């Protein structure tokens, strides 16, 4: 990570609490329900990517998945998705205020009607979670599926939970 820790935006609520599995969950989202990411449970099946691409890109468009499973050593995987930062770089850098927080899910959502496809958010997100769709030429990011994230719903290993 090139950004220094001091200047990097903090995720909305990365809870230090450990889950019953004694793994540090990354809690994404807030208020009522949160997307809990448990890399230790991840089996690397990439069903989450598939589910996300179905939810957002249509069948077989894995490249449009907004969650990605990264190998992190021998049989270890980390699921990478948007952390819905509190003081988000994407929203800050957007020249047309196309990225705004959904009050209900607390997700940062790109308005496709407002996005002008300049690509700045993609360049600016320190975690690489902003995707620029080459076909629609709009920014895409995890929107927590409006309150029912497909990735969590389909994760067979309960490595992603929305609770």
């Amino acid at each position: 990570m090139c950004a220094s820790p001091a200047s990097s935006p903090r995720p909305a609520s990365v809870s230090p609490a450990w889950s019953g599995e004694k793994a540090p969950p990354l809690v994404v989202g807030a208020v009522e329900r949160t997307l809990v990411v448990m890399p230790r449970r991840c089996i690397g099946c990439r069903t989450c990517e598939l589910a996300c691409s179905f939810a957002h890109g249509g069948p077989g468009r894995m490249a449009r998945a907004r969650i990605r499973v990264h190998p992190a050593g021998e049989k270890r995987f980390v699921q990478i998705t948007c952390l819905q930062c509190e003081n988000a770089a994407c929203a800050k850098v957007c020249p047309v205020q196309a990225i705004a927080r959904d009050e209900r899910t607390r997700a940062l959502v790109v308005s496709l009607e407002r996005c002008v496809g300049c690509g700045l958010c993609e360049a600016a997100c320190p975690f690489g979670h902003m995707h620029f769709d080459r076909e629609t030429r709009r920014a895409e990011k995890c929107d927590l599926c409006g309150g029912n994230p497909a990735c969590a719903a389909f994760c067979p290993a309960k490595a992603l939970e929305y609770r």
Partner: protein
Amino acid sequence: MAIRIFIDEQEVKAEPGESVLMVARRAGFDIPALCYHEAVESIGACRLCLVEVRSGARPGISTSCNMKAEDGLRISTDSPEIRRDRATNLELLLLRAPGSPVLRELAARWGVRPRLQPPPDAGIANCILCELCVRVCAALGHNALAAVGRGEKKRVGPAFGKPAEGCVGCGACLSVCPTRCIVMKDTPAARTIWGQSFEFHRCQVCGQPVITEKHRAFAIAKRGLPEDYYDVCEPCKQSQASQRFASVVW
């Protein structure tokens, strides 16, 4: 304070001053528009978002993109007149942009076939002169594009036909172009658009392009994020993040 407008006799809530087109689309009405974009001011160029105003002092056919919602406004989105005028305007647009899939799809849907001769080339094939590129470029603060000339000789592009100083090669003009007629070419070496070449700022990890150098400089100067935010490409940032999280987890 929310107001009520009536679209095809259906009551719809709106904020005062909102674009009628935006309100109608939000409520699920299918009104075509090519030159409309929420991020910029509407100029009513394409003349497809026609609705019929049925209340107030000036009833009649009007565009909805640049019409502001007012309490009690009554409009209809479909009538023989609307269909007829919309079809005529679509035909005129189709003559300019016969290669545009968006226009061809609309034409197929409404049964519009061009019967007239195409106007002279607007300098860019398939350009419908809606000025979305111009407006968006201005909204982003680059002001690299302008509309010039009048009548069918109107053109859009960099002023005086010369490479514009303000252009940073961001490509937003192409992103918003309804007919995608703006030619932008990316090679590993550089991006070419509007007669200018832009060098890429490259990922410090893998060397892939991240953003054009000029766009980066503009963002650093105007958008208030630290300089090093633009130094790594999206996949490399992801894998960096995954490594970092892994080190916390295990």
